[in-house]
């Protein structure tokens, strides 16, 4: 875990409302892993107090850079969208647990819902370099929220939109069912990030089909280092709660007490 100030090296929109930002990552620091996140201190003038968490979406050891994909939502993300390369941000990283390695020979199926795409891109890139033949299913409300990325040419990608404006007409879960109905349901393991209803639907499906399923969870954070007990979600076992910032954000979907 490192706390440092680092320059923005690239910052640009990739589709409606979503942006990608690359930041310098000092080469002497341990590299971040897929599933881990960072927090950014709100820059002066945003009127915001608490650091904002973002999943790491890529790490480039050659250029010593990390990347995040973020959605313009409120004060801090709107400010970020207007930042120029050369400006510096105060970063705390890498935080939280990473996605585990896929089990045995299982084919990794990666599901991303909306802005949950960031950590799935990082996981996809890292799995590709170890020829595990992953599949990426990317769901969004409509085509304006789907970027066009070189990554999609290197990995089996299924795009799904709620309104059918691009790719499969339906949710990412509908697309998964259709993909599996085509005979791709043999030996798979799920990795997902997205809205809670999507993750819950996937958890139910994984349980019914007895498959491993790893989900990345979001929760409002205070400290992001395990000290404040503010970011918990209900889980089975323990005292009934787990801290998303340190025990997560990656959880076995069966551990979570879905409501």
């Amino acid at each position, binding site marked *: 875990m490192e706390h440092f100030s680092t320059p923005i090296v690239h910052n640009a929109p990739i589709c409606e409302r979503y942006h990608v930002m690359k930041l310098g990552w000092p080469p002497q620091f341990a590299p971040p892993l897929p599933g881990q996140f960072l927090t950014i*201190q709100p820059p002066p003038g945003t009127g915001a107090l608490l650091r904002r968490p973002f999943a790491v979406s890529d790490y480039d050891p050659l250029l010593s850079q990390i990347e995040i994909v973020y959605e313009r939502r409120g004060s801090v993300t709107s400010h970020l969208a207007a930042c120029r390369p050369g400006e510096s941000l105060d970063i705390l990283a890498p935080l939280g647990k990473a996605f585990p390695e896929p089990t045995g020979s299982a084919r990794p199926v990666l599901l991303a819902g909306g802005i949950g795409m960031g950590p799935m891109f990082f996981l996809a890139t890292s799995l590709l370099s170890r020829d595990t033949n992953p599949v990426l299913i990317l769901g969004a409300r409509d085509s304006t929220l789907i970027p066009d990325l070189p990554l999609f040419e290197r990995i089996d990608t299924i795009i799904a939109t709620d309104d059918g404006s691009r790719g499969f007409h339906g949710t990412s879960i509908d697309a998964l069912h259709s993909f599996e109905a085509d005979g791709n349901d043999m030996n798979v393991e799920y990795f997902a990030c997205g809205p809670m209803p999507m993750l819950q639907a996937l958890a139910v499906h994984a349980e019914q089909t007895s498959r491993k399923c790893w989900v990345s969870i979001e929760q409002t954070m205070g400290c992001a280092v*395990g*000290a*404040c*007990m*503010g970011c918990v979600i209900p889980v089975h076992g323990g*005292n009934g*709660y787990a801290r998303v910032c340190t025990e997560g954000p990656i959880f076995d979907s069966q551990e979570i007490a879905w409501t």
Partner: protein
Amino acid sequence: MDLTVKIGDVVVSNPVGVASGTFGYGSEYEQLIDLKSIGALFTKAVTWEPRPGNRIPRIIETTSGLLNSIGLANVGREGFAKEKYPFLSGLACSTFVNVAGNTEDDYARTVEWLDEHAPLTGYELNVSCPNVKEGGLSIGGSARMVEAVTQRVRAVTDKPVIVKLTPNVTDITEIARAAEAAGADALSAMNTLVGMVIDVDTCQSVLPGKTGGLSGPAVLPVGVAIVYRVSRAVSIPVIGIGGIEGPDSALQYLLAGASALQIGTANFVDPTVTDRVLDGIRNFLSQHNLTAVSEIASLLDR
């Protein structure tokens, strides 16, 4: 330059502490700051039995503030002794266990047990947490009950006992005097202010328990005024807490009459805030040709 602060018989190396509930049990911040540079570390509340804490969501940001409803989530006295104590006991800084409970008995038996199984520098009695329906708020709101709890704890330990006051009362000086009379070595002022946030889209309060405790820069002037009044009502040291985020806010407390400080929410924003504050205090002392932190208060309205 004398940066030390005396709490009971204990000499704390410098006036900058970290507040209960915002710094875990120290190990969480080990990689981010040099824990030796902190004056005193106040642990998350420890209760007799473990507590799971409140329903979610537990925190929400407000204008310049943070509203929390953690609900004293903690591992209990035995979990504390087993899992947290070994790390804390190896630290160079002073370490105070923040103790909470629902009854006078709870406080006394927890302190007595910790004195035997997990002795650290001393105790801070959280009689003020607004999140637990019974106990917390009602004890801290009554001079009679604060006096009784303090007396009971005083009787079971020789270590410094600090009573942490709640601002959610009519006359805080009355409560402060009651704690002093019962043998408290110092007072912490203040805990969080009761607050509420309502989501206008859903017409629901954001926190499941409806209200929570407000902290952060938004509460600074409240804390400074409270320290100003309390430090004039008692002769034991007062530890200023609430909204400190840098040298300026810290110095306001010292000018108002605080002998020491605790920083809470600001640790979340900048884990190095304690270093910045201590540097700021040093600079202020040299600028004003002072030799000790205790002299700062004499500058107010001179």
